[in-house]
């Protein structure tokens, strides 16, 4: 039968016929290890919010059909038809007598891991016990799985019937994704035995998991030439102390002896000084496009461009921080997200936290509206004058490209890093691919560096792109 898989999942229910109820004494979470957590005690009924009660109109017409049979029976003088019609009338009465029961349930939800790593499967066990006095002949439970988590095993739903004192347990698995996730209320739908009336309620059993990815350092990320005055690792066009040759100039009094070009002195008799390329640190702001339109993916199960951007931003963040640059984080999003550029271990922890759990970078889009000019004004006010911007965007609309050019025009050198969410199966998809490529071309011709990466990883793409770049 179709529900055999569900039975296999619900190992906790442990009943031999594989069906859903169990005695009051059996506790499904008993055998589990200490890391599973109960959300609330079992016996108090869970807070219930009434949503709606409707007639399902399933039985409309039964009385008419029954009386038609009776009438026909009278006309053709067949008593058996009258009897059959009488049974139909009996069903009509049955359909009219019930009232959708109010579910009084104690709901507990436990998760196998409250702080999983991204990609881990988290098993969720939901137990609902009928602690009210009435039997629930038809109860359907739909768990409020957080929108950012995908159910990967066993539907988060069950349909059963509960006598007072019995409980139903169902189990499913979600794949953990980056961010804080709160479960929404469990939806309980009850019907009377005939199914003529239906009542929907929401049962609030709060559960939350927090999934914070480790930041892995990506490869060396070349920055553009806008730097601070502090010593660092970005080579500049300023001559001074360093390791790489930059230029020679006339000797001035006070130049260190070891920087004098003795070969030239021997050849021509003139004193000259070798200038080396100064290496300075930069201030970088990682800007992640997380507007509604950036939540795109090549196929329904793939990670969205925002996820790819955030992962790449995480790699860039730790790589730049390790290189001694000051790094900040901002989101191109209706919600406000701003981590001012900084350095040090505390800042690294803060950045990891921001990338993992900031609502503006959540795995699902926010409902608010995005106002471009307001956002740009605020962003420019916050951006330090010597900051350059690494802009992570899938470039699926013109707004992102325009913003990149405007920020660049204001003197903050922009590098666009673009995860490629396009595919080429249909004509529309090919058109979108073409438009995006055109945007990239426009950006490059405007002097903005752009890297795109698709299937290959972010560091590989950066390494491949950097070979073409001049300083």
């Amino acid at each position, binding site marked *: 039968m179709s529900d055999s898989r569900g039975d296999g999942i619900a190992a906790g229910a442990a009943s031999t016929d594989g069906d859903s109820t169990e005695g009051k004494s059996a506790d499904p979470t008993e055998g589990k290890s200490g890391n599973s957590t109960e959300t609330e005690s079992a016996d108090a009924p869970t807070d219930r919010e009434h949503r709606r009660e409707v007639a399902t109109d399933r039985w409309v017409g039964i009385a008419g059909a029954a009386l038609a049979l009776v*009438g026909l029976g009278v006309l053709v003088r067949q008593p058996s038809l009258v009897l*059959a019609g009488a049974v139909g009338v009996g069903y009509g009465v049955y359909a009219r007598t019930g009232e959708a029961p109010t579910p009084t349930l104690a709901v507990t939800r436990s998760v196998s891991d409250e702080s999983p790593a991204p990609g881990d499967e988290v098993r969720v066990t939901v137990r609902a016990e009928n602690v009210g006095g009435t039997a629930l*002949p038809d109860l359907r439970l739909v768990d409020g799985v957080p929108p950012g988590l995908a159910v990967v095993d066993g539907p988060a739903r069950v349909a059963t019937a509960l006598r007072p004192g019995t409980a139903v347990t169902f189990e499913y698995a979600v794949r953990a994704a980056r961010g804080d996730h709160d479960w929404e209320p469990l939806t309980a739908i009850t019907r009377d035995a005939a199914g003529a009336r239906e009542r929907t309620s929401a049962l609030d059993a709060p559960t939350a998991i927090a999934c914070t990815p480790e930041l892995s350092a990506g490869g060396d990320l070349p920055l553009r030439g806008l730097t601070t005055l502090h010593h660092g690792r970005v080579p500049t066009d300023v001559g001074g102390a360093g390791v790489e040759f930059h230029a020679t100039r006339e000797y001035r009094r006070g130049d260190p002896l070891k920087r004098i070009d003795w070969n030239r002195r021997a050849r021509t008799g003139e004193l000259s000084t070798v200038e080396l390329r100064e290496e300075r640190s930069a201030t970088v702001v990682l800007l992640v496009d997380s507007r509604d339109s950036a939540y795109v993916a090549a196929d329904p199960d793939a990670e969205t461009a925002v996820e790819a951007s955030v992962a790449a931003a995480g790699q860039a963040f730790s790589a730049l921080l390790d290189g001694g640059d000051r790094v900040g984080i901002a989101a191109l999003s209706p919600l406000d997200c701003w981590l001012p550029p900084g350095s040090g271990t505390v800042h690294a922890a803060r950045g990891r936290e921001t990338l993992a759990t900031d609502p503006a970078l959540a795995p699902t889009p926010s409902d608010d509206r995005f106002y471009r000019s307001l956002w740009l004004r605020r962003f420019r006010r916050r951006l330090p004058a010597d900051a350059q911007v690494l802009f992570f965007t899938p470039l699926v609309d013109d707004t992102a490209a325009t913003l990149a050019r405007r920020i660049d025009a204001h003197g903050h050198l922009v590098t666009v890093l673009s995860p490629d969410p396009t595919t080429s199966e249909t004509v529309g998809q090919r058109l979108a*691919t073409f438009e995006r490529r055109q945007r990239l071309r426009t950006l490059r011709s405007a002097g903005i560096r752009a890297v795109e990466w698709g299937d290959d990883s972010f560091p590989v793409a950066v390494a491949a792109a950097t070979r073409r770049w001049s300083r």
Partner: protein
Amino acid sequence: MSGGQGGDGATGEAAREEATGETAREEATGDDAGVAAAGDDVPVDDFHETDARPPTVAVVASLAAAGVAATAALVASPVGGALLGAAALAFLGGSLRNSTRVLTWGAAVGVVGLAVAGYRGAPAEALLVAVVGLTVAWNVADHGVGLGEQVGRGARVRRNVAVHGGASLLVGAVAAGLVYGVSLAVGGGQPVAALALLLAGGIALISALR
């Protein structure tokens, strides 16, 4: 935007169509046992939570009840039996297409089948079995479509369907037993109009009590 979501819709639709086609083929070729087996190999690889088809157990129970009804009517009248068979097919089709409208049409055809069987002089016992069978079949199939919409095919529903189908079978059995007992008690020789008037009296009494 276009790139991602275009692929989204297209792939999802194709996958769904393929799945439906497959099930339809399997269930159309198999008898009851075959249908039951088909439900077991739900594709686990590409798991999608929202498989809105009715659960197999409901479809099978509905077909079984419809089969009983058709057999009972066939004993009395081939035409009536054939119409009830058509109703059973409509229940299967409605379940596969998630359509309560098809189910309602099936039930209507079944009622016509009952009328024809009764008109051809089917015995009361056979007709009572047929009417209870038809009602249970429609009820379980319709319930299954509702379950498919709300909890999906993959969820655990056996107990729910059993309670719902059992309750409707019980109600039918009690009603049939009652009217059959009454008709025996008042004696077979009474005119049909007297039975109908008795029923009308019963209905009036019930509506007054409510």
